[in-house]
């Protein structure tokens, strides 16, 4: 009797197992996994979504399918997206999220991304990329000589981030930047030039997410240095003022590769203004100088010149950021840590306080390598 009971129980348990399973099963080939998500506004400020779905078939030459449409919100758009593909749309494999310029010109677009964070199945490691122009152009570009757009963009952003020339800000990181009051968001920026995707550098957003300004590669590196994020291997170039120019070649160019930078930020508060002293100290290796120069003898003078030039560029950069009232360096975080009493008063509008702050920059470069040629 007991044995029969055990058998019956086992069979029942097995049946229950089979019955409960399979509810959220989704085969790889049945899922449409858009790898890129685009968001933009059209001329009438109507919200548009875009997606690129890879097509898994050897017989179809075009490797991806583009989907687009208008909707009120991303999750609401899912049914429109589903309607355009063979599988069911899953937000689990987004590699990049493209944000159109028109969208970024409005405050509070960030709320549209809510579904990414609230539905835990959606990935939040997708790279946020601003598009200088319209997202449509990028999504439908499909260059024949390049890999799938999402792979191209993801690779572009990730590898250049290693050289500190842009930011691979993930959705999660962007979320942090939005909700940390001591810092304003910064993301990568691309542009279509001659039907080619080009990385512009980075885009700085203000505290509400509105587009403020763009930085090119060199400026992004300098910002990275200020943020203590620059990895060794970044490369900077300057015109040395007193060197001869032989047109059409600009022979006064001087480039170096930076080592591991030591950035020190001192925070103070004087005369109702915040005061930041930033010291950047790093070893550099010469990559090129187009003018004749005896580095072995006159290294010191070159170091001084380069330091001064770099200092000037950084100061200009900071002034520009102050004008636009953005603080991607996160100096607010330093102020909160060191001068909390004064900071808490201006916390709600830190970028404003930052724009009045006094920022002094000191750069000290020391040449440690000059290359194997004289």
């Amino acid at each position, binding site marked *: 009797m007991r044995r029969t009971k055990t058998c019956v129980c086992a069979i029942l348990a097995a049946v229950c197992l089979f019955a409960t399973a399979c509810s959220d*099963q989704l*085969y790889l080939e049945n899922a449409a996994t858009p790898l890129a998500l685009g968001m933009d506004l059209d001329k009438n400020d109507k919200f548009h979504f875009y997606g690129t779905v890879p097509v898994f078939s050897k017989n179809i030459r075009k490797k991806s399918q583009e989907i687009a449409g208008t909707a009120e919100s991303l999750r609401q758009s899912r049914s429109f997206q589903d309607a355009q593909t063979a599988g069911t749309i899953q937000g689990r*494999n987004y590699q990049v999220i493209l944000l159109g310029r028109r969208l970024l010109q409005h405050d509070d677009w960030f709320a549209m991304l809510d579904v990414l964070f609230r539905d835990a199945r959606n990935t939040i490691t997708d790279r946020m990329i601003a598009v200088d122009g319209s997202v449509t152009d990028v999504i439908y570009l499909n260059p024949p000589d390049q890999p799938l757009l999402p*792979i191209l963009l993801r690779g572009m952003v990730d590898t250049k981030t290693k050289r500190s020339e842009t930011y691979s800000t993930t959705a999660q990181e962007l979320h942090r930047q939005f909700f940390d009051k001591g810092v304003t968001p910064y993301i990568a920026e691309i542009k279509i030039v001659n039907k080619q995707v080009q990385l512009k550098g980075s885009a700085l957003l203000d505290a509400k997410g509105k587009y403020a300004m763009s930085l090119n590669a060199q400026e992004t590196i300098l910002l990275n240095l200020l943020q203590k994020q620059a990895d060794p291997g970044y490369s900077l170039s300057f015109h040395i003022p007193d060197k001869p120019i032989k047109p059409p070649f600009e022979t006064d160019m001087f480039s170096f590769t930076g080592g591991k930078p030591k950035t020190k930020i001192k925070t103070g508060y004087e005369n109702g203004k915040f005061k930041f002293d930033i010291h950047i100290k790093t070893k550099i290796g010469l990559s090129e100088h187009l003018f004749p120069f005896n580095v072995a003898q006159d290294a010191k003078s070159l170091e001084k010149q380069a330091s001064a030039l770099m200092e000037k560029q950084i100061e200009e950069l900071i002034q520009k950021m102050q004008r636009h009232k953005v603080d991607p360096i996160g100096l607010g975080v330093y102020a909160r840590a060191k001068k909390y009493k004064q900071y808490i008063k201006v916390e709600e509008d830190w970028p404003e306080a930052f724009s009045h702050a006094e920022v002094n920059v000191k750069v000290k470069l020391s040449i440690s390598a000059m290359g194997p040629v004289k």
Partner: protein
Amino acid sequence: MTNEQNGKEKPEPGEVIRLSLDENLTILRKLFSDTPDLFIRTFTIKQTQEQAALLFIDGLSDQQAINNDVLRPLQVPTEAGKPGDELMMNVGHIVEESCWSQIEISILHGSSVLLVDGRDKAYALGTGGWPQRAIEDPQMEASLKGAHQGFVETSGQNIAMMRRYIPNRELKMRRLIVGRRGQTNVTLVYLEDVMNPKLLQSLEERIQKVDVDVILNTGELSELIEDNPYSLFPQFVLTERPDSAASQILQGRCVVIVDRSPSALVAPVSFYSYFQSIDDYSTRWSIATFLRLLRLFAFITAAFLPAFFIAVTSFHIEIIPLKLLITLGDSRGQVPFPPFVEAIIMEITLEMLREAGVRLPAPVGQTVGIVGGIVLGQAVVQAGLISNVMVIVVAFTAISSFILPNYDMVAAVRLIRFILMVLASLFGFVGIIVGLMTMIAHLLTLKSLGMPYGSPLAPVRFADWKDTIIRAPLWLLNKRPTGTLAKQDTTQANEKPKEGKP
């Protein structure tokens, strides 16, 4: 005395032989009716002028020995003796028996029995000589540097081979007879001053309890004395290598030799015993350690890889890295089956090929290899039935299971793999984790001869770790494993070898 009167009944067990040879022979003919291979040779012993009969079974006894060492000395005319004298025979192994039951066993086990008229004892002569195989390289546990002798089907030879490794008088044996009809000799071989007596007693009791007709193989015995007969995991190591058996004895374990079976049973063992091979001790310790880790890794991949593949492709596509997603998608896109069906088809094909390869004779076996290689490797993918990646997964699983040194453990892994595949297809990673947890819990509760199967990791016995997952240098292995509760724990007192000077 009813037997004597009607002369037809068989003797009761324990009944002794008569003095009269004729009576005895009548009884014997009754006992062994319809036994044409029993030879009865009657003759007169020249030495004592007594009537005698020699009984032996053709094929189980050595004809040469019987002719030259028994019949000839007894029939050569010598100095006159009187009846009852010690007989002249050139046989070393002579046992005097008087019970019918013992005589019967002696004859059936290949001894020849000499019955002499007027004596109340029969002589069982060790002239056994049955068909035997030459000692060969072990098939299942081939070794690169170890000895090339494997156990054979005669327990006496097997014990001798082990004794060659441990020529020590502390190497003791207990001989038990198992099986009502088979009367199989089962010998427990152990080191008296090392082996824990309680474990030995427990093993002996378990074997004594076995009540079967016949034990044909060590595997049958092991199944009858296991701690948990429902478990998928083997609980005793079966080895066909005398050197491994000797090494196990030295570690405080008991080796059970079953007559007529070429494998020896080792108890108690732990889960990690199945990942050790005798070559580990003859190669350098660093490579031995690497190999042991590799085997554990292979165990995990052999059990979990197909399940992992199913779970990923049917539940968790988000964890596939982008570039792999595209390759995987391309490869999966053309397959008409869901991942589970695809995996089951391939795994079953693999199991079939493996089974076919085992049973087929070597020349045909090659054909199976070629067919399998082409079917598994190419045609299935080209026909679009199975994806490339699945083929790789199955191949990797197969390779992983080939490097495990113990066949029984591989068999367990094969079954676990299928269970995990079903779980993965139903519940994804949750199913795999549930399977993993159940497996770990089961391994932890499992016992081998009452000793914990998970030792030395659970319960933790740090001292044994040196020779479990890793293989420490031999000069560090000065103690026997504590997992066997050995009476004597020090085996050696080596120090690190020093750099020498000429």
